[in-house]
C-alpha cells in the first residue's frame, strides 16, 4: 500500500515536472485528476485559458466555458490523496496590485466586503523596512480554529487544506477568535453576490456563500483538482504567490517553477508568527532585493483602499 503510494508520488513528480515544463505560462501544477469540464451552454468571455486534458494535452478554452467540477460534501472532507499543499509568498515582489484579492473575490463569488486574501502594510518595528504583506489562510498543521469548532464544520484534510463546510457551520464564530491571524470572515447578511453562483454548494468551492456562517481562503481545491493553481497565484502580475506540493517539493507561480526546499533554503523563507506554534503551510520570502518601492503600492488604489493604510506607522511618518 505504502509502496504503491510512493511509486505514485514518484510518478506524479516526474509527470509534474514534465508537464510543468510543457505547460508554461498560466497553466497547471500537479497531477492526478487533471480534467476540465467544459460547459457548452455558458457564454464566452473572449478570455482564453490553457488547460490540460485527461490525455495530457494542452488545450485552449474560453474561460466562460470552463466549469469546475464540484465534489460532494463527503468527498470534500477527505482531501486529494497523496498530496500536501504549500504556498510561498515572495514579499520582495509584492507591490499591492490587489489582483490576487480581486481574482479571489470573483472566483469565490464574494462581496467586496469579504476578502479571503488581505494585503497588509506591515513594518515590524520603527527602524525596519515597511513591506506589503499578502495574507491568505495559513492552513496550519496545528489549526486552533479546527480544535475549537464545536460541530466539526471546519476540518483539516489529508492534503493539508483547512476547509469550512458552510452547511455544517452554526456561526458561533469561535474559530474567528481562535485564529490568531484574523483570517476568517463572517457573512453578516445575505450578500447578492451569493446568488450569482448557481452551482450546488461544495466546501471545496466555498461558494455559494451562506448567511450567518464563517468562510475563508480555501487554497482553491476545485482548481487544484483540474490542475490549476489558486486564483490569487495565477492572477498576480508580479508572480508573488507560488503554490505547490511539499511532497513533490515543487512550487510554481505559473511562470517560474522552483524546488520548494531549495527556494526556502536559498531565500531564507520563514513562517509568520512561528512562535504561536500553529505550524502554517504558507511560507514567506523576506522582502529583500525589492523590485518596487513600497510607495508604488499606493499607486492606483481606490480612495477607500488607500485609507486603510493611513493609520500605519509608515503612512503617519510620511505625512506631509
Amino acid at each position, binding site marked *: 500500500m505504502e509502496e504503491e503510494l510512493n511509486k505514485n508520488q514518484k510518478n506524479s513528480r516526474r509527470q509534474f515536472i514534465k508537464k510543468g515544463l510543457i505547460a508554461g505560462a498560466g497553466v497547471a501544477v500537479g497531477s492526478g485528476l487533471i480534467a476540465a469540464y467544459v460547459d457548452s451552454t455558458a457564454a464566452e468571455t473572449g478570455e482564453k485559458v490553457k488547460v490540460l486534458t485527461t490525455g495530457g494535452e494542452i488545450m485552449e478554452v474560453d474561460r466562460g466555458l470552463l466549469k469546475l467540477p464540484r465534489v460532494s460534501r463527503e468527498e470534500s472532507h477527505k482531501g486529494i490523496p497523496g498530496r500536501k499543499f504549500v504556498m510561498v509568498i515572495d514579499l520582495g515582489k509584492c507591490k499591492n496590485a490587489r489582483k490576487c484579492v480581486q481574482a479571489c473575490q470573483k472566483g469565490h463569488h464574494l462581496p467586496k466586503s469579504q476578502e479571503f486574501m488581505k494585503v497588509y502594510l506591515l513594518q515590524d518595528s520603527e527602524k525596519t523596512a515597511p513591506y506589503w504583506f499578502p495574507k491568505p489562510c495559513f492552513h496550519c498543521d496545528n489549526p486552533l480554529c479546527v480544535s475549537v469548532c464545536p460541530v466539526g464544520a471546519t476540518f483539516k484534510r489529508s492534503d493539508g487544506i483547512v476547509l469550512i463546510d458552510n452547511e455544517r457551520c452554526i456561526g458561533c464564530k*469561535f474559530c474567528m477568535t481562535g485564529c490568531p491571524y484574523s483570517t476568517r470572515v463572517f457573512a453578516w447578511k445575505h450578500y447578492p453576490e451569493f446568488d450569482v453562483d448557481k452551482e450546488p454548494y461544495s466546501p471545496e468551492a466555498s461558494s455559494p456563500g451562506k448567511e450567518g456562517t464563517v468562510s475563508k481562503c480555501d487554497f482553491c481545491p476545485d482548481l487544484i483538482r483540474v490542475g490549476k493553481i489558486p486564483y490569487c497565484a495565477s492572477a498576480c502580475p508580479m508572480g508573488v504567490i507560488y503554490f505547490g506540493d511539499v511532497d513533490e517539493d515543487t512550487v510554481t507561480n505559473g511562470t517560474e517553477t522552483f524546488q520548494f526546499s531549495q527556494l526556502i533554503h536559498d531565500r531564507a523563507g520563514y513562517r509568520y508568527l512561528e512562535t504561536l506554534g500553529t505550524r502554517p503551510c504558507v511560507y514567506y520570502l523576506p522582502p529583500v532585493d525589492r523590485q518596487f518601492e513600497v510607495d508604488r503600492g499606493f499607486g492606483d488604489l481606490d480612495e477607500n483602499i488607500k485609507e486603510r493604510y493611513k493609520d500605519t506607522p509608515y503612512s503617519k511618518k510620511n505625512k506631509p
Partner: protein
Amino acid sequence: MELQQKNPLKEFAPQLERTSIQGYAWILFLLMVIGVGVYAFLQQVIHGHEVTGMRDNVVWGVYIVNFIFFMGVSYAGALISGTLHLFKTAWRKPIIRMAEFITIIALLIGPCFILLCIGRLDKLHYLVIFGRIQSPITWDVIAISTDIFGCFIFLYLSLLRDLATLRDYELLQLPNWRKKIYKALALGYTGTPEQQERLNRATDIMAAMVIAIAIIVYSVLAWIFSVTLQPGWHSTIFGPYFVIAAVYSGSAVLILCMWVFRKVYHLEEYITKKHFVSVGVIMLVLAAFFGYFTFSDYLTKWYGSEKNDELLIQLLFKKFYWPFIISNYVGVLLPLLVVGIAKFRTITNITLTSIVVVIALWLNRYIIVVPTLESPYLPIQDSRPEWLNYSATWVEWSLTATGVAVFCLLFTLASKFINIVPVTGLQKEEKKEDILV
C-alpha cells in the same frame, strides 16, 4: 411537628394573594421592554447580524458580555446559598430563597445571549448531533445544562417545606388551580422525621454539588477565552479570575434584590441591617480577591510587556480608560471602603455600592472581550469605521435591556408564586447587637 407550629405564612400570604396597581404597572412596563426586544430580535433574524455592531474583528460584543454577566450573577445562589447552607449560617434563612431564585433565573437568561450571537440558529441542534468533545463550547453546553438541572433540584428541595405549608394553609385566598399546583408540587411532604432527615440529606448533597458544578461552569466559560492565543485572553489565571468575579457580581445582585424586596414587601423585620452587613462583608472579601486577581493579571502583562500585551494595555488606558477605571479601581475599592469602614456601613450605602459593583463587573467583562478583539496580532487595516471600532447598536442594547427585564419579570412572578422569604423554621430577627453592625 414543624408544620403545626404557629403559621408565619399569614404574614406573607397577601404577597401571593394580591397584586397592587403598581405591581401590574411594573409588569406591564417590563413586558413593553421585552416587546421592543422581540422586535429587535426579529430585525436581527430578518436582516442578519449586520444590524449589530459586530464585524469580522470584534465578532463577539455585548451579547457575550451579557452572557458572562448573567452566568456570573447566577453564582449568587450557587455559591453563596450553597456555602451558607453547608456552614449552617443562622442568618441565611430570610435571604437564601432570593439567592436561589437569582441563580436559576440568571441561569435561564445567560445562555439566551450566546444564542443571539450564533449566526445560524436553525442549525443549533448540530451542537448535539455533531458535537465535538474537543471544543470548549461543547464543554460549556454540557456544563451549563448540568448546572441548570442541578440548580433546579437544589431550588426545588428548598421550596418543598414551604410548598407543603402553602398546601396546608386553609386561609389562603387563591384560585383552586393554584392550590392544586402547590399540592402536586409538595409531593406529599408532611414533615415526618423520616422525610425531614431525607430532605436534609438531599439538600446537603445538592448544596455541595451545586458549588462544584458552578465552579466548573464558570471555569469552562473562562477557558473559551483563555484557550485561544489572543493577547489578553491567553491567560492561566482566567479560570479562577472568572469564578471570583462571578461570585462577586452575584453577591452584589443579591444585596440589590434584598433591598428591593425589603421595600416592596415590607420585610424590614426579617431582612435587617445585619443581613446587609453580612452579605456586604462577603462582597468585601470577594472585592479584595477580585482586585488581587485583576492586579496579578495586568501586572504580569504590563511588566513583561510582550508586544501585543503592551498594545492591549495601551488601548485599555487610552480608549477604554473610563471603563477600565470604573471596573478595576472603583469596582474594587468602593466596597472595601464602604463596608470596611464602620461609619459608612449603612443599608443605603451598601446598596448603592452594590449598584456600582454590578456596573463595574459588567464593564469588566466588556473590557475583557472587546479590546482584545480590537487589537489582534495583525493590525486591523480597514477604512470602514464599524470594522475598526466596535460599538453596540440599538438592537444589542435593546436585547440587553430585555435580558434585565426578563430577569425582573421572572423574579416578580416567582415572588407571586411562592413567598420570597421561606416561612419554615423562620424566626424574626432578634435585636441583638452584632460586632459588625
